[in-house]
Every structure is written in C-alpha cells, then in structure tokens.
C-alpha cells in the first residue's frame, strides 16, 4: 500500500471529522442531561407547572446543543469537501480544524446546560417569573456559546484560507498550535460562563426584585470569564497570520506548537476559576442587593488574580512565538 499526499489528506479529513464530532458530542450531552435532571426534580416539586418547565427544558437543551451542531457542521465539511490536490500543510490544516472545533464545543456544551437546568428549577419555585427566567437563561446560554463560536471561527478560517504559499516547515506546527489554542482555550471559559449563568437564574427565582441587577452582573462576570478564551483566540490568530520564515529545524516548529498548547491548556483553569468566582458573587448579590457594589468589586479583583495564571500562559506563548 502506497501513501501519496492525497491519501494522507483523506486520512486527515476522516480523522479530523471524527475528532470534531467525537469531542463535540461530549459537552452538549452532559449539559443536556443536567438540564433534564433538574427539570425532573422541578416537575416533581411543582407538578402544576410541568408544561412550562418542559418547554423551558426543551428551549434550554436546544441552545446547549448548538455547540454540538457547530461541531457537526465542521465534521460534515471535513467529510464531504474535496481536498485533493493540495500541499502537505493541508493535512495539518484539516486536523487542526477538527481538533479546534471538537475541543471548543466541550466547555460551552456543558456550560449552557447549567443555566437551562437552573431555569427549570426556578420556574417551579417562582412560577410568576417564568418568562423572565427563560429570557435570562437564553441570554446567559448565548453568551456561554461565545468560546465555541471562537473555536468555530478558527476552524472555518483554517478550512477556507489558502496556506499553500507559506513554507511547509514551521507552518504545519503553527497551524496545529492554532487549533490547540482555540480548542483547549474554549473549554474553561465555556464551562465557567455556564456556572455564572446558573446562579443568575437561581438568584432571580429566589429574589425577583433583583432581576435586572443579577442579569447585568452575570453578563459582566461571564465577559471577564471569557478573557482567557480570547487570549487563546489571539494566539491562534497570531499563529495563523504572522507568516514564519522557512526553517527546517524541529525546534522552531515545536516552539510554535508549544505556544498553542501552552495557551490552550493555560486557559482552562482560569476560565473555570473565574466562573466559580462570578457564580458566588451573582448568587449573593441576588440575596443581598445592598452589597452589590462591594461584591462586584471583590468579584472583579478575585477574577483578575485567578486570571494571572492565564496571563502567564499568554506571556510564555508570546515568548515562544516571537523570541525563540
């Protein structure tokens, strides 16, 4: 059996498609299962509201599923596009596109299950708030999807840009690195953003008068939580568009891939941590509205400190790209 370049590209397309949909299926399924379990509990508490709770569950699950649908789109593109007649770089491009979207869908899928579940619990606890809870859940889940949208953007850019003019030697590593940075980088922020949205639904159900404050602080907390995913996106953009001088040494190539892996993995922890910080802040702002300015300030400071490890990763990744 001989392996020419077209076969390798086909191998990469099938593997990439499998990775995209395989990883992409993890998150959404967990999130949706969580939503359904909360909906069950909610219905048993308040059977009269079962219609509303069921509707809320389905809407929430539909949003949680969108990350997996992004992964499905990328997997389908990989399986059915004709890539033949391209260079060696295309092998890495295809793999990286699959990895980026697959990994990127994990966090957002799990994350958007949390607000949906808590919204169901909230509807049973406070039926009068059911419309506002659904709206808040939709906003929170939509913001949760942002990291997976970043991963999707990177994989679309990979698939639709022309890298054939670039030198093969370091570019293959830069492209894989970009996939890792965007993919891994999205996990933590997606999950963390879900934690924040979860308690905002809980708080709103407990204390309806706090609704607008809680939504605002939730958006703020989620936005800060996404910062490390944005670093991942930034590193991926730099790796894709900087244009590297040709070099045959494996060290230079590994530095570029290392930069991507470093930023990607380094973004997971801060994302979850900042989400946990904002979760508690939002939960207690709902119960103690007078303390809103104090709690918001402490939340931002705490998030900044927990983000510092993400900034270390960013610094190391930039050093790997620009210095070495």
């Amino acid at each position: 059996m001989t392996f020419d370049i077209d076969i390798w590209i086909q191998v990469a397309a099938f593997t990439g498609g499998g990775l995209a949909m395989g990883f992409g299926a993890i998150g959404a399924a967990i999130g949706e299962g969580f939503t359904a379990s909360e909906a069950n509990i909610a219905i048993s508490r308040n059977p009269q509201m079962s219609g509303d709770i069921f509707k809320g569950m389905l809407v929430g699950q539909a949003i949680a599923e969108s990350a997996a649908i992004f992964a499905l789109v990328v997997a389908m593109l990989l399986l059915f596009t004709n890539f033949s007649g391209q260079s060696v770089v295309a092998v890495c491009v295809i793999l990286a596109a699959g990895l980026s979207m697959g990994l990127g869908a994990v966090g957002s899928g799990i994350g958007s299950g949390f607000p949906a579940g808590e919204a169901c619990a909230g509807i049973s606890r406070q039926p009068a708030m059911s419309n506002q809870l659904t709206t808040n859940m939709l906003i929170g889940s939509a913001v949760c999807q942002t990291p997976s949208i970043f991963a999707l953007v990177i994989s679309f850019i990979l698939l639709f840009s022309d890298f054939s003019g670039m030198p093969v030697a370091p570019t293959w590593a830069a492209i894989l690195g970009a996939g890792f940075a965007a993919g891994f980088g999205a996990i933590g922020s997606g999950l963390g953003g879900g934690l924040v949205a979860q308690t905002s639904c809980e708080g709103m159900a407990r204390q309806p008068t706090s609704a607008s404050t809680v939504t605002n602080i939730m958006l703020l907390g989620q936005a800060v939580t996404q910062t490390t995913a944005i670093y991942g996106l930034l590193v991926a953009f730099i790796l894709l568009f900087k244009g590297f001088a040709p070099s045959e040494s494996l060290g230079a190539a590994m530095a570029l891939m290392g930069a991507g892996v470093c930023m990607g993995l380094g973004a997971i922890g801060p994302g979850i941590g900042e989400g946990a910080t904002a979760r508690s802040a939002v939960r207690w702002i709902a119960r103690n509205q007078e303390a809103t300015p104090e709690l918001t300030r402490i939340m931002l400071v705490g998030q900044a400190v927990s983000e510092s490890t993400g900034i270390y990763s960013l610094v190391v990744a930039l050093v790997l790209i620009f210095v070495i």
Partner: protein
Amino acid sequence: MEDLGEIHQLIVPLFGHEMTFNLEPIIQTWIVIIGLLVFGYLATRKKSLVPGPIQTLGEVFINQFYELTADTLDKELTRKYAPLITALFMFLLLCNWLGVLPYLGEPTSDLNTTLSLGIMGFVISHYAGIRKKGLKKYLKGYCEPLFFMLPLNLVGELAKVISISFRLFGNIMGGDIIVIVVTYLVFSLVLPPFLTGFFFIFIGAIQAFVFTMLTLVYIAVQVN
C-alpha cells in the same frame, strides 16, 4: 464563498509609508453616525411633556443608561460619563445591527473599529483614574499588592484592551462567517433568516451591552 475575508482597501502613499484605509468599515461607520444624528434630531425636534414615539425611544435609552451608570459611579462622575456610555451603546447597537441590511456589513466585524473603541475606553478610564486619584496614587496602584507585581499589572491592563476588543470582533465576525458558510451549505434554504436573527440581532445586542458595561466597569475600577 470566494469573497470570504476579502477587504477593499485604499492605499495612500505618504512620505515613503503607506496609509491603508479599509473602505467598507469607514462607509458603514459613517452610515451609523448619520443614522444616530438623524435619530437625535428627530427625538429632540418637538420636545413635549407627552413624548412622541421617537422621543420616548430616546428617553428609554438615556434613562436606562443613566441609571446603570449611577449604580457604578458616584453622582458627579455619572453626570460626566453617562452621555459617553449611552452614546457608546447606541453606536455599537446600530453598528452590530447594520449587517441585517442588504449590501451592508457590520463595521464592528473589522478589528480596527473594535480596537480603536477599546483603546478609547482604556484612555478614558486611565484619564478618569488620574483625575480622581492624582498621579501619585494612580501610579502606586500598579505596585499593589507588592512592587514586583508591576509587570504583571501592566500586562493585565493591556490584556483588558485586547480582551474587550477581540470579544466584540470575534463574536460579530464569527456570526458573519457562520451565516455565510451555513447559507452556502443549505443553498440559502430555510435557515438563514433564523441565523441572521440570532447572530446579528440577539448576539449583536448582547455584545454591544457587554462592551458598554465593561467600559463602564473599567472606568469604575480606575476611579475607586
């Protein structure tokens, strides 16, 4: 599909350097500015105690964002910065919604727009911080909690600009790309209007609000 990522540029040679203008965002930004000016004129043309529909809309914007600013800043600063916050939100909202119209795109899907707005917020927040606290106390803020945290604090401040501008840019451009690619995949059947509604209208409004809130919070963090 082929025109994905294509940008019309005007390149002007100037003293041996080249100045590059991205024509589309500039035109679109001017459309937004003119739209806002017309809205402002119509809202204030016939001011009355019983407001007409356009005046009501204007009052809704102004009331909401004055209240939001007053929650975060003190009274004097609210008077100073609430107009900025309101204008920023209205500008971003119209920018993000402009892509719904045929032949137009969002100026915010160009990184230059979001980055300049991010830098604007950065400069304003630091100016406000220096005005409020004085230069010495402002500089001392960078050496907290300990002096060797200085480089980290500096990187953290710059990272704020990057994160705020890339968040808006990534979301809006991501929505654009998703709509284009999915429209192509489904041969423009059924899905595109729903996707446009979700990514342009819904995500656009949320991201405009998030950007405005973050600018407000950056000012508040510097002031306190």
